[in-house]
């Protein structure tokens, strides 16, 4: 695959280089042709030469006319003489003069004509129309130049024609090259296109095979995860049996040594059960089967649940655990409190059981929609480094040991909750693990609850149970305003009463307190003794 990519690059580079080479050569040839054209389109010196020849003839004609007694005046003769002089002067100046002289180097007819002009100047200037002798002498003096100039004109004409032919040949050559270069470029481009089309097909085929392989591996991984989940689940059942039997054995009469061994066995079994739970979670995360909840919960409950949950672990590790809020926390939040609690528990358990933590402070704070848990850990020096688990994910995966399972699950949970996990340290040497998760705060409004209970004690129990919620108790005469009606169940004419209440408060939810004969009459039933948490959650849901 790599060599194929290299070959493609070389072919592509080669095509580009050859195309540039052909284009450059074509440009050079075109430029040369252009220059040749410019040279060819210079002043036509054959015409200049013929003008000299013509003016000599006209001058001689003017002399001849006077000699023959016609009307050519001395002024006319002089004018013709001056014009002839000027034509000779053209051969002496500028690029045209230089080019004309190239054809006259051997014969030097123009040079000799100029000398003749100078020699005859005095005679011409003073010439009279009736001075036939002088006219004849001057006429005779210029006579030989006529044929020589004619020969010079012929040479120039032929020479210029040859030069034009050379330019035409050069341009033809250039045009031929341009044609061949164009054909070569077209062939090259077509060849390149065919090559890249074929390569494209091969790459598409490879990509298809790669996708199929990836899908195959994904399926294999899925099967593995499912197997892991199933096995973990299956292992938990006998493990619960082991724990149960251990509990029974501990209650039986045992000597201290046996008791110590049983306690050790119980701890190990509990730890294994925890690991199995972690494996289950991890497999569920890998399978992407875990869906997050978004339910209202009380911040206070989270704060109280953590010490309750982790206190025994800290006690066993002989460490101190302190959970406290920092600043003002919203009363209620909306999120997956179970997963949040589990995330914190996994990390703290890891610090206590594996990292040798002596002292853990968990500070919960809230800002800008994020619930931040700052876990400050003071741990025993023992070669453990937080980087071992919080460094690059790759490292922890390479050294994937049982103790890393918890933090790994926690990290994936944080990621699933679109949160962030950061590791740092404090000046006092404690490590600080910040877990920030977006959890929106719930706007607290007061819930209007109507209590329709048979006895005052029952009313007091209910009020006390839900007292932590923002609730306004509505009197019976304002029943239509109530959002929740809590009715005692198991009374006479229960169905009628519920129907009458629903008519009175058409928009209210009716919660039954007790054990109703017909639970379907109620929107929710809270059995007695009241399960405070469940009732509060249902009321919170109404609030949310």
């Amino acid at each position: 695959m790599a060599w194929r990519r290299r070959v493609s690059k070389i072919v592509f580079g080669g095509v580009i280089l050859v195309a540039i080479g052909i284009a450059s050569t074509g440009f050079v040839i075109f430029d040369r042709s252009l220059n040749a054209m410019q040279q060819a389109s210079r002043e036509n010196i054959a015409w200049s030469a013929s003008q000299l020849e013509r003016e000599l003839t006209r001058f001689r004609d003017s002399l001849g006319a006077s000699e023959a007694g016609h009307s050519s005046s001395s002024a006319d003769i002089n004018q013709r003489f001056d014009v002839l002089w000027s034509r000779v002067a053209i051969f002496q100046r500028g690029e045209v003069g230089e080019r004309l002289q190239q054809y006259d180097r051997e014969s030097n007819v123009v040079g000799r004509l100029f000398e003749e002009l100078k020699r005859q100047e005095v005679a011409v200037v003073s010439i009279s129309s009736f001075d036939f002798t002088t006219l004849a002498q001057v006429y005779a003096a210029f006579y030989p130049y006529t044929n020589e100039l004619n020969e010079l004109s012929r040479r120039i004409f032929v020479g210029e024609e040859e030069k034009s032919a050379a330019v035409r040949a050069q341009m033809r050559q250039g045009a031929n090259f341009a044609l061949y270069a164009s054909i070569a470029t077209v062939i090259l481009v077509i060849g390149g296109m065919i090559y890249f089309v074929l390569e494209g097909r091969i790459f598409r085929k490879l990509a298809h095979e790669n996708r199929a392989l990836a899908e195959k591996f994904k399926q294999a991984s899925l099967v593995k995860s499912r197997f892991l989940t199933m096995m973990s689940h299956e292992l938990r059942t006998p493990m619960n049996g082991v724990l149960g039997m251990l509990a029974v054995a501990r209650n039986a009469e045992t000597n201290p040594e046996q008791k110590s061994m049983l306690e050790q066995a119980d701890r190990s079994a509990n730890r294994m059960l925890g690991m199995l739970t972690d494996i289950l979670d991890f497999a569920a995360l890998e399978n992407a089967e875990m869906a997050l909840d978004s339910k209202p919960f009380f911040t206070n409950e989270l704060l109280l649940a953590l010490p309750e949950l982790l206190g025994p672990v800290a006690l066993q590790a002989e460490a101190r655990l302190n959970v406290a809020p920092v600043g003002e926390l919203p009363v209620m939040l909306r999120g997956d409190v179970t997963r949040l609690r589990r995330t914190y528990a996994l990390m703290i358990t890891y610090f206590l059981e594996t990292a040798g933590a002596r002292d853990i402070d968990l500070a919960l704070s809230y800002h800008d929609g994020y619930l931040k848990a700052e876990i400050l850990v003071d741990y025993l020096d023992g070669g453990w480094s937080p980087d071992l688990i919080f460094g690059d994910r790759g490292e922890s995966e390479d050294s994937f040991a049982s103790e890393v399972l918890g933090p790994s699950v926690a990290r994936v949970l944080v990621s699933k909750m679109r949160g962030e996990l950061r590791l740092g340290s404090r000046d006092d040497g404690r490590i600080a693990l910040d877990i920030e998760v977006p959890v929106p705060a719930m706007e607290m409004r007061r819930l209007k609850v109507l209590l329709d209970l048979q006895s005052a004690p029952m009313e007091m129990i209910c009020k006390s149970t839900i007292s932590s919620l923002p609730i306004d108790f509505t009197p019976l005469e304002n029943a239509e305003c109530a959002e929740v009606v809590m009715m005692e169940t198991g009374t006479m004419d229960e169905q009628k009463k519920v129907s009458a209440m629903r008519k009175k408060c058409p928009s209210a939810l009716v919660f039954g307190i007790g054990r109703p004969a017909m639970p379907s009459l109620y929107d929710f039933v809270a059995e007695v003794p009241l399960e405070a948490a469940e009732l509060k959650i249902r009321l919170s849901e109404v609030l949310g």
Partner: protein
Amino acid sequence: MTRLIKPLLILGVALIWGAPRLATAEETVLTLVNAMTGTEITLTEAELMALPHATIETENEFVDGMTRFTGPLGRDLVALLGGGGSTVVLTAVNDYAVEVPVEDFNTYDVVFAVSADEVRFSRRDKGPVWVVYPMSDNRELQDPVYNARLIWQLVRMELN
């Protein structure tokens, strides 16, 4: 003595005529004609030199290197004839003639040069007037079409 006088007289006349001849003040050197109105203006040497002159510096195939040409501008001569017209026919002393679009004079500073590098043209050297285009400053003028319009020994301009 008389044998000596005749050659001396001839030499004197030759010296007067022989130097590159300039026109006398009264002699017409350039005739301007407006064929549409019948206007004809004949310019003597003095009148030609009295016209406002412009100078351009340019090369062409008939001179050695950059040369300063001075003389009236073509468009000024057309204006002298009352303007209008689309072409001018320029005729040299040897009856060579060329037709030039008036547009040339409006587009370029075409000079009806009477001198090159401050030296007045004689008839033996493109005088009295040489029409010069500013070829060095305008590459498009470096073409045989415009070379043919560099008419020298100009004696007549006719506006049509």
